[in-house]
């Protein structure tokens, strides 16, 4: 079977790997429009920050053994009748099954001055975009970022880490409004300010102009901001052109069923370009889950396999920022149960919504030690802890048992002092009464503190307490 995958991004590369890992007689051809090997898009903001080099964002690749990866090959058309794809080079390649993993493209807002894109105005989407931003940032002292969503903030953080003076312009009343409620947005803005990123909220841009090495962004309130560089992060649009031209059902994305099939049984779509149950995902985790479904369908390893979307978790983690948002936590509607904690001065905010003992949504910003637990409980739909405070304070799992009583006097006789040799306080007291007076004597008689040695201080404390309580005995 000949399988062609159009697109060598994170979805396409993953599908190639999934198919490679499965038995079967098939030839897989991957056609990537970008000239380089597959890379991890999530690491681009780290690349922007200058901490790593380009090779560090490369993803593991499967080549050889039935997988033919061709980069820098743009597909221009799909001929469904002939079951062929045509490339910009004029090649025609036949397929038995075709998978669209064409991803999405950055949206360029319809503002005066952006067509064509000036040199110092760059969208933030691909490795090539990243290269252009880095080229423009060389020698730059300031940058503007248009768009205060997840990607815009990652770009802003990356540029700030390079020492640029960064301002984010966002038309909505608070940052990341699709994931955050207004108080969380405000805490996030405060955190960003501390990292050298200013925010201009609730104001639209009206035009862009360039003047030599400077870029000017005109705002609806009459002001104008200037910087050495303007990064556009105004959302993405699924790349559906090939699918639409080929007559496949396309809404906002390429429409697929539970097995990721388009309106043509021989064509599937996965990742950012696919629209499943009316939803576009735009995240890596669902794209990889979809890749697995297609691989299982094509390999016939699990004919009953279906894509079951899992709840999405948005995670922004960069030096100084720790944000997790999921579910309905930005909703205004009252929840059955709601937990909140806010310490805006220290950049911490938490809001969790619970129904039927399950998390329906959460926003955690700043230092929230239970974030891993919350993400897992939400992801798996598992019941929340009876002690809800643990979700805020991180005592959910593995809280240490109560510390030994501070004073030996308060310790019950049966309390174990030495775990290694199973010695109770009572045994030590009895030993004292029998004449042992020093830690060494107590140890010799009871074997306390002869194992790991960790209870030595506790034994000494008991000896001191007994000496104080029984001064006669101590001097005898």
């Amino acid at each position, binding site marked *: 079977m000949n399988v062609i995958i159009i697109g060598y991004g994170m979805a396409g590369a993953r599908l190639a790997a999934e198919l490679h890992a499965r038995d079967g007689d098939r030839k897989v051809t991957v056609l990537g429009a970008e000239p380089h090997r597959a*890379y*991890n898009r*999530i*690491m681009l903001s*780290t690349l922007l920050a200058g*901490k*790593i080099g380009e*090779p*560090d*964002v*490369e*993803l*593991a*690749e499967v080549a050889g053994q039935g997988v033919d990866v061709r980069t820098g090959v743009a597909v221009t058309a799909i001929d469904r009748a002939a079951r062929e794809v045509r490339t910009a080079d004029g090649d025609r390649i036949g397929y038995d099954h075709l998978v669209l993993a064409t991803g999405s493209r950055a949206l360029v807002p319809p503002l005066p001055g952006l067509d064509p894109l000036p040199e110092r105005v760059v969208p933030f989407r691909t490795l090539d975009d990243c290269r252009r931003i880095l080229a423009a940032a060389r020698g730059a002292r300031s940058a503007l970022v248009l768009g205060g969503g997840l990607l815009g903030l990652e770009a802003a953080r990356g540029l700030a880490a390079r020492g640029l003076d960064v301002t984010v312009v966002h038309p909505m009343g608070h940052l990341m409004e699709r994931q955050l409620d207004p108080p969380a947005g405000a805490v996030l803005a405060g955190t960003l300010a501390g990292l050298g990123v200013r925010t201009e909220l609730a104001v639209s841009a009206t035009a862009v102009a360039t003047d030599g090495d400077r870029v000017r962004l005109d705002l609806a309130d009459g002001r104008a901001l200037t910087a050495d560089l303007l990064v556009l992060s105004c959302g993405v649009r699924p790349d559906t052109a090939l699918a639409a031209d080929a007559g496949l059902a396309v809404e906002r994305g390429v429409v697929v069923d539970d097995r990721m099939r388009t309106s043509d049984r021989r064509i599937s779509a996965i990742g950012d370009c696919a629209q499943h149950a009316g939803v576009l995902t735009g995240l*890596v*985790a669902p794209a990889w889950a979809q890749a697995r479904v297609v691989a299982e369908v094509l390999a016939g390893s699990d004919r009953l396999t279906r894509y079951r979307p899992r709840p999405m*978790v948005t*995670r922004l*983690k960069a030096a100084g920022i*720790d944000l997790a948002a999921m579910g309905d936590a930005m909703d205004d509607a009252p929840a059955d149960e709601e937990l909140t904690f806010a310490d805006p001065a220290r950049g911490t905010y938490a809001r969790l919504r619970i129904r039927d003992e399950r998390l329906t949504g959460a926003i955690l910003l700043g*230092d*929230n*030690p*239970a*974030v*891993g*637990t919350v*993400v*897992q409980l939400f*992801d*798996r739909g*598992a*019941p929340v*802890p*009876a002690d809800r405070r643990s979700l805020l304070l991180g005592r959910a*799992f*593995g*809280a*240490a*048992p109560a510390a030994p009583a501070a004073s030996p006097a308060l310790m019950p006789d049966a309390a174990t002092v030495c*775990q*290694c*040799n*199973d010695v109770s306080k009572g045994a030590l007291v009895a030993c004292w009464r029998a004449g042992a007076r020093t830690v060494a004597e107590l140890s010799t008689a009871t*074997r306390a503190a*002869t*194992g*790991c*040695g*960790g209870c030595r201080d506790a034994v000494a404390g008991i000896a001191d307490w007994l000496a104080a309580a029984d001064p006669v005995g101590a001097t005898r």
Partner: protein
Amino acid sequence: MTDGARVATLPGTPPREAATHCPYCALQCGMVLRETGRRIEVAPRQFPTNRGGLCQKGWTAAELLDHPDRLTTPLLRDRPGAELRPASWDEALDRVAAGVRAAQDRYGRDAVAVFGGGGLTNEKAYALGKFARVALRTRHIDYNGRWCMSSAAAAGLRALGVDRGLPFPLADLGRADTLLLVGANPAETMPPLLRHLTDQRERGGRLIVVDPRSTATARLASRHLQPLPGTDLAVANALLHIALTEGWLDRAYVAERTTGFDEVRRTVAGYWPAEVERLSGVPVADLEATAHELATVDRAIILTARGAEQHAKGVDTVTAFINLALALGLPGRPGSGYGCLTGQGNGQGGREHGQKADQLPGYRRIDDPAARAHVAGVWGVPVDDLPGPGLPAYALLDSLGTATGPRALLVFGSNPVVSAPRAARIESRLRDLDLLVVADFLRSETAALADVVLPVAQWAEEDGTMTNLEGRVLRRRALREPPPGVRTDLAVLAALADRLQGRAPSYREMHNKGPLLTPEEAFPTDPRAVFEELRRASAGGPADYAGVTWDRIDADTGVFWPCPDPDGPDTPRLFADRFPTPDGRARFHAVRHRPAAEPVCAEYPLHFTTGRVLAQYQSGAQTRRVAALRRAAPGGFVELHPDLADRLGVADGDEVRVVSRRGDLRAPARLSPAIRPDTVFAPFHWPGAARANSVTNDAVDPISGMPEFKICAVRVEKP
């Protein structure tokens, strides 16, 4: 307390004294035994590993020497279903020889199998391997260490070129700025080791523990990562991802001392922290802090243990941590490195000298022609007579009594009825055998199924060597003779070889070239003579003991292998200049997370994991018979989180039933917030209804054959 390791043996009549080591775990704590009349006292001694400490198991170890349950006469079962009855040694050995002959005559040489143990001395492990290959000429020998060390061993071999648990002395732990323990709970499994951790803490070092349970060790940690069971590999890849993105790699080391990094780099690019947080539940901030604390200090050590290794992806999980250590430039750097904490007393030496199905003495491969030629030369047998590799432990036991499997099994120093995964199935395989022979000093659960039980000596009644978790060869020294009626394992092998000599004509009759050995020469009963032969057999192998002598061990605190020359140095620290690989470089291997072999589902919604408690050891056959240990840990239990217990309607102490697709266990519930609410834990020391291994999964690692003891899917019910 006696200082140093020098011989303190006062032979002759009581009072007698012997400076030896504890019989139990791989820490091999130094101790002195004193016998006055019928009383035997145990006292710790200063030794570099235990530094004068002993846990309760060590203090009470001598109680089994004169225990009423001690076997002092062979036992025979006249026919299936009959009771075991006392028999003479001649009768018992004749029965074994006859059973072996019958099986081999009818089904071929491989119809007899041998199953050894990680508690046997080097001499016994060596002799057992030789006995299987030379006297029985079967390819089927493996041992319970397969369930212990095999994943770390395989990962160490393929990455570093050698498998020595710790490539540095234990004392290095005390000097580490950061110590990462993955799936290790030494506070319960080898308490005196904590003296080194105390040392480390007092010097300002950080201890980071990765464990799904908040164990006694985790509670000592400055940072505890509590991943979902079975996600350690992803955690390791995320730590490497972070080190990469933060620029913390030792790029010069990677370039000069390793190969294969690019593929690892591209693989861990797919393990960004948020993705792994969702998979493992370990917060991104903790992953970042851990990577930082490992990567930005002078001395960092990463140790794995069974929690990370006893999985169907155990080799890859250990590999992921070795990758991390290599990328940070740790192995070979003074005070830094990767190691694993060996479990059983001679878990290290026991895996070096031929008890493993694929191995010959000196850690040689049985499929390596040069290794075969060398060992055949030492043994005085034609090289073509040496069998090839046999099956790894679980596959071997699972084949017993089947159409193609062995019909007879000889067990030395192991109790698989309690310790094997999916134990009920293995128990039934053992029952299907034509002949089961168990050499032990107590009537273990496996001995209770045997057709012949041979009573053998205990640790304080024999001389020999053990190789501890550091690769340090130690002397076990006899305090006294075995009681009347009891023989040493070496004597048992010699007597069987003698009876079977007609079955092994290779070394006597069939070939008229090479040294011809009598059974007495081939299987000496004097352990020192066996060790001398072991030295020759191991010479030139990866675990080279050629330069180790008993006298040399006695003169100092043991000898670290490799030690090829009696007059040359030993090797306390490996990898300073090169790795023992063909090109001298360590090898990265790209490894990917994969789910547990048995995922949770609606019917079996909880993760089940197993482990130890402080006062018991292994299958408990020994420690369950010690009164003080029985008081401290009287029986099995099921640890579960109070939230889970509440949902199940279970109160502390209620009996619960843990059910998997393979079987169930019943034990009282022990409620503890130390465990995740999605996971339950049971210790594996007890037989019968509380047997944890009735539940465990027999899926095995494709490379090491390690069973997946540490995770399977269960439900918990009220019976």
